[in-house]
């Protein structure tokens, strides 16, 4: 294992880290913006629900890799897309990746938020009503903050999940961390200097993110007392809840 190689090309990896972080962060934010109306709608008997449920099921039930392929390579197949205004966006690999990642994250976050809203203790809503707040005020001032707080661990998982999922970007020509690793390998005909460096970088970033989230959780969830006779099996940490 030749350590000199990745060190010599540290700038390649630095750009890769920036690209990865940028893509991951934006995908999470846009995903959140998508998930908010979806989660709120799902908790009411809205007419849009079948559509939303279909979207969530589709994006949670299929691999991110294929979702990305279909947006980048799949749509490019059609002349009518290439001739339209949307081509300006879909032409770029970066935008295609962002769209795919955001839609994917949005679906997972919609499920997280929906579940959290559903498990809002009745008392909080009743308290709001007792204070004379309208349903809208109750939603924005009581239910959402409380739900977001409750879902914090799951959001932490989703952040790590999206970071790992972003690797797929390198498969559609984006020079993220893995892309940098592959380029290094290709230049020197080595097999794993590039991949090992990429692995170390991902592990470091994950470690930092998990640490940050643990601090955030400590701060925001310090008021929660866990019931000692809860027989509920803890959710698998690190994985999005699919079932």
């Amino acid at each position: 294992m030749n350590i000199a190689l990745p060190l010599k090309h540290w700038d390649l990896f630095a750009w890769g880290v920036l690209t990865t972080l940028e893509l991951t962060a934006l995908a999470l934010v846009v995903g959140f913006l998508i998930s908010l109306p979806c989660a709120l709608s799902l908790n009411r008997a809205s007419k849009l629900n079948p559509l939303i449920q279909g979207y969530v099921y589709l994006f949670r039930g299929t691999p991110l890799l294929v979702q990305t392929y279909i947006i980048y390579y799949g749509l490019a197949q059609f002349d009518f897309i290439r001739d339209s205004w949307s081509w300006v966006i879909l032409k770029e690999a970066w935008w295609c990746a962002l769209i795919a990642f955001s839609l994917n994250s949005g679906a997972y976050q919609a499920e997280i938020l929906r579940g959290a809203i559903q498990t809002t203790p009745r008392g909080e809503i009743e308290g709001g009503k007792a204070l004379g707040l309208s349903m809208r005020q109750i939603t924005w001032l009581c239910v959402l903050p409380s739900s977001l707080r409750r879902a914090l661990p799951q959001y932490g998982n989703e952040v790590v999940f999206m970071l790992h999922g972003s690797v797929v970007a390198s498969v559609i020509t984006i020079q993220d961390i893995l892309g940098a690793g592959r380029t290094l390998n290709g230049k020197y005909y080595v097999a794993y200097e590039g991949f090992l460096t990429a692995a170390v970088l991902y592990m470091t970033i994950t470690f930092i993110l998990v640490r940050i989230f643990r601090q955030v959780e400590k701060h925001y969830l310090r008021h929660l007392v866990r019931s000692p006779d809860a027989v509920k099996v803890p959710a698998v940490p690190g994985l999005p809840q699919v079932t």
Partner: protein
Amino acid sequence: MKRISAIAAATAALFAGQAIAADLNICVEGAYPPFSETTSSGDIVGFDIDIANALCAEMGKSCEMVQSDWDGIIPALLEHKCDAIIASMSITEDRMKVIDFTNKYYNTPARFIGAKDAGLTDTPEGLKGKVVGVQRGTIHQDFMESEFPDVELKLYGTQDEAYLDLQAGRIDAVMADSVAMDEGFLKTDNGKGFAFFGKGYSIPKYHGEGAGIGIRKGEEDLKKAFNAAIDKIRASGQYKKINDKYFNVDIYGG
């Protein structure tokens, strides 16, 4: 106890099935028409494969083709997944640091292709602001990075993916081997509307002496055997037969 030994036997059989049966394993790519491409049934065919089979017949050895993606083809050779690379790999100094090569088995220049009506020229000024696609880890990538450092480069895992994006308009030009692009793209339905522009490049610094057979360092006997076989099929007319099956010109080069 019986169950454990049955499982052990099955596992051993699985691994044995993976063991090498042929005398020589040859790494081929399968994504570089017409030199190598994959049919719908999963077989790999093309000029490289025909040459490989002809050489093996001359050497009196049985050969098996092993598919490898271009990115991992040299590591595959180094790690004994195969014993030779016949995948249109150019003989360059950089590669010679890691592996060895036989004599060339063909040599053709590299060129640019782009849309017919784009009016592109192969100068740094002419390509300024344009995007050129190359296959990652090829001499064409090195050439572009050195001779056209200010042109935006997009790297692809296979040549086919570069053609795809050229058709889609994501890139303005592709730099690769002229014969491969001619037969593998321009002359096909997908290549309508695209043509060569600029001259042919055959600079030894980047393009080497041509495409050779990659082998591990130290395998002198294998190298001699391959070289002898190449000379024999050139002399016997076998090479010409395979050449003419795919191309109108003699691609062996001077």
